[in-house]
């Protein structure tokens, strides 16, 4: 670990100021950042502690939605009565991640910004275009079981590893951001980026921008499922995950909001997948069609080829469960 300065940011404006330079990183729960600093994957000169800046509340919004403070912990969010009753998919997604101890410390903002678990990214003695642009990608032709099958590039095939953002993507939530140019909001679905030729850019945050909150739209009800397939029953990242909000009217799909984890550099939301279900009665053939659309451009890298059939089967399981529950 490199020596670094620790400063408690006195205000949001000051936090923005400090993190505008590339040598300062914001620290919230620290559950991801400190691990990476110990491995010298992250080597900031300074940490700006944002924990005392407020925005830890979870509050109703005027239009019946819910605003999750960026500094509210994952645990506080998952157990919040309104999250549990109105946005159960979010509660389930958070509780499917990490461990109780980690969730007690992890914040919503930090969770959105958590970095990939790619083995080559976390080992500074291995090549990685994300950590060290131009050094090559260790995972392509390496151990890539956890890696992406959608939206990859020849520079990087890493996944975004988180669960919470997958549910947020299905829910159509919005990320609220504050920076020196003022405030802006970005749909969660547009917050994370694909690797392309710039795998080190993981989300749309500009230098100096701080996430202040996440806003959930007014609840939509429906059957809400978060299904995470993993190698042990807890404390493992998703091989594949599905967040689904499903409604049937007169035996036909009237709502199908779907997002997927473990498949790409971002929570994967392809509006065509849900759309193809709308107005149709559930059937295996229909589920297959949805999977065909989802996986149209899927590409495996050997070790992770299994994710293609696994995604198809998991989607089947989720849609079957949802339509049984809804019927």
């Amino acid at each position: 670990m490199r020596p670094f300065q620790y400063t408690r940011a006195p205000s949001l404006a000051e936090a923005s100021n400090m993190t505008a330079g590339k040598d300062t990183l914001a620290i919230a729960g620290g559950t991801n950042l400190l691990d990476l600093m110990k491995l010298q994957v992250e080597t900031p000169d300074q940490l700006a502690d944002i924990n005392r800046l407020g925005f830890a509340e979870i509050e109703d919004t005027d239009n019946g939605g819910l605003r999750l403070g960026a500094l509210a912990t994952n645990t506080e969010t998952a157990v919040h009565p309104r999250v549990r009753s109105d946005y159960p998919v979010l509660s389930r997604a958070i509780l499917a991640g990490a461990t109780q101890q980690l969730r007690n410390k992890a914040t919503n903002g930090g969770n959105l910004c958590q970095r990939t678990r790619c083995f080559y990214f976390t080992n500074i003695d291995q090549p990685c275009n994300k950590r060290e642009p131009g050094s090559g990608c260790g995972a392509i032709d390496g151990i890539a079981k956890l890696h992406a099958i959608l939206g990859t590039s020849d520079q990087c095939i890493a996944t975004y590893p988180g669960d919470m953002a997958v549910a947020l993507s299905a829910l159509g939530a919005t990320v609220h951001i504050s920076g020196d140019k003022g405030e802006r909001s970005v749909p969660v679905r547009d917050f994370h980026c694909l690797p392309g030729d710039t795998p080190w850019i993981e989300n749309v945050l500009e230098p100096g921008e701080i996430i202040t909150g996440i806003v959930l739209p007014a609840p939509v009800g429906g059957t809400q499922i978060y299904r995470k397939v993993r190698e042990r029953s807890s404390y493992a990242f998703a091989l594949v995950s599905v967040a689904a909000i499903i409604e049937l009217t007169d035996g036909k799909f009237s709502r199908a909001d779907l997002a997927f984890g473990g498949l790409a550099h971002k929570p994967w939301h392809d509006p065509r997948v849900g759309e193809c279900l709308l107005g149709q009665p559930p059937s295996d053939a229909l589920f297959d069609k949805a999977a065909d659309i989802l996986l149209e451009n899927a590409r495996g890298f050997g070790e992770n080829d299994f994710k293609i059939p696994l995604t198809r089967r998991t989607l089947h399981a989720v849609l079957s469960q949802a339509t049984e529950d809804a019927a």
Partner: protein
Amino acid sequence: MTVHFKQDEPVNSNRLDGMKQGVLGKPLPRIEGLAKVTGTASYAAEFPVENCAEGVLVTATITRGEVTSIDRESVLSMPGVIAVIDDEKLCTRAAQGTANEAPMQGPSQVCYWGQPIALVVAETFEQARDAAKHLAVEYRKEEGAPLDPSEVEPEEQEDETVHQGDLAHAMADAAHSVDVTYTTKGHASAAMEPHAAIAQWDGDKLTVHASLQMLNYNITELADALDMKEENIRLISRFVGGGFGSKLGISEEVVAAALAAKEVGRPVRVVQSRQQVFQTVMRRSETTQRLRLAADSDGKLIGFGHEALVSNLPGETFAEPVLQSSHFMYGGENRELMLNVARIHRMTAGSVRAPGEAVGMPALEGAMDVLAAKAGIDPVELRLRNIPEKDPEDGLPFSSHKLAECLKQGAEAFGWDKDQRKPRQRREGEWWIGTGMASAARVHNISEAKARVTLKTDGTALVETDMTDIGTGTYTILAQIAGEMLGLDPKRVLVELGDTRHPRGPGSGGSWGAASIGSAVYVACKAIREELATRIGTSEDKLELSEGKTATGESLTDLLEGKDLAREGHYEPGDIEDDYTASGFGAFFAEVRVNHYTGETRVERMLGAFGFGRVLNAKTARSQCIGGITWSIGVALTEALEFDPRDGHLVNCDLAEYHVPVHRDVPDLDVVLVEERDGAASPIQAKGIGELGMCGGAAAIANAIYNACGARLYDYPMTPDRVLAVMPD
């Protein structure tokens, strides 16, 4: 005064059953448990040592070659940095268990990615770690180091080879035959406490606090590595936060700390990072195993074949002893056994809990299930029919053999459903449900051991040995043995372990600890009893002691006449080892559910029934079994070391990515202790239990997966991707 007992004959007198104190076998809680859970038990790195500098190992970033230069100046100017040590005496690997000599030294020669090549010493750990990452090292790289066991010509381990009869013929003649190949991936010990050492010199005397399992060997290994006399070294390892084989021999940090402390003239602590522990200490080799079983129409084996390929680095003598129990597990007069080792440049392969059977038994017991299904015989019955009368290879009698009882009692307690042997009979929603079983076996090991027991004038007793307690309960069972023999409440017995100033024990490894050191304590206590008996004019076998008194009411304190009474017990296994085949046996039963869509497997319940001689403490024995079964779940479903195909480095080197089972993976586990007295195994009639609980259990799960959903897998661990690949529609 030392009393020597060399065991050439079975001890069938059941002496310990006749003692009056009545504490042996009782489920007493661990003596040191409270200290551990309240944080007052100091582990190796935690000893308060003044003016201690911190060392961090620097590891190689090439697979094979030579370190041509190390630029010390690149880090010596960094804050806090005191020294860079690249002494040729630094160890590049950990010693194998019972090596009794220094492990590989000479850090300038690189043999695997991640190998220690130097140590950076600084004022703080963080400074040392940063400097270790910044040390500029140049290499001369040797390309083409083989990394894949299947790409090299393997070496046959000839002493494992058996050619008996004509297996090919038996296979051709058999009413039912099975010829299958299983694979297992590498495993890590993943002990909670990382490898750590603090070294301190006083003139030419060296004291090292380290986390080690076998001080009796470790002191010799360290002396050899440093070219010192053993009497100038003191090793201390009072508490060990798990070892599971990874701390059998000295590892790199012990020698590094000693060399550094000498050079910088002050104490030095070296703690390996979690990643380093994974990448530099020991892996269990991956295996490829071909099983051939030939049976007559009744399911009785007429042929038995087990061939295995394992791997290790050049220069290592250890080869995962996959066939260990296969030599005697089942009958079959036509036999082919062979163990091959491939020399590859992955990190050192060595002992990880239950070396051999941990992976050999899951393959054998998987194949037995395939045979049972083919022959249409209940798998429990198939095993009962194939228990050999005597060792099928060397003809020796078994010292004791509880497999049949374990199979029967286990099946009964589990509620084994004989009639549910067809796959895919039960489904709940998305989940297929099924059951499976497997036998357990783990060879019995025993070792020479010494312990001193002192009966004190204050009415307490002291037990001293350099034996370690690696979390298994050694402190407690030794207090129970001494308490039983001397008629004392175990609370009045102080047990001091883990210090080479004490008589040499056997070390904790190979499940031999309890039986070996327990026998040394027994021998010492027996000698004390003899002396006491003389003092009251009776014979030792008539002496009844309990609660600090004789049967006639004299107190032990009075008998001591104001002087402590000490005896050193020296236990040595004798010729008896050549007269019997000795092993622990058992049976596992598992119920699992397998998700039809995702291939995820969850163990619903699991039971193990085990026969391993005398139970010294029903609680610690049960805990060992539960721990073993938990490891079985890891072998079956989750644990796999992954190595990079291009440079051979271990990629999943932390506890987030190397998947040991978590609480949620481990359901209620049931243990049936099938008590027995095995007088040929040890004078206290006990055998090992530390490993038996994981020797075959993975197959019970694999067989249950087949029973549940019809997917027959031959590759451990059975992760969702592998289950789905063979899941019937």
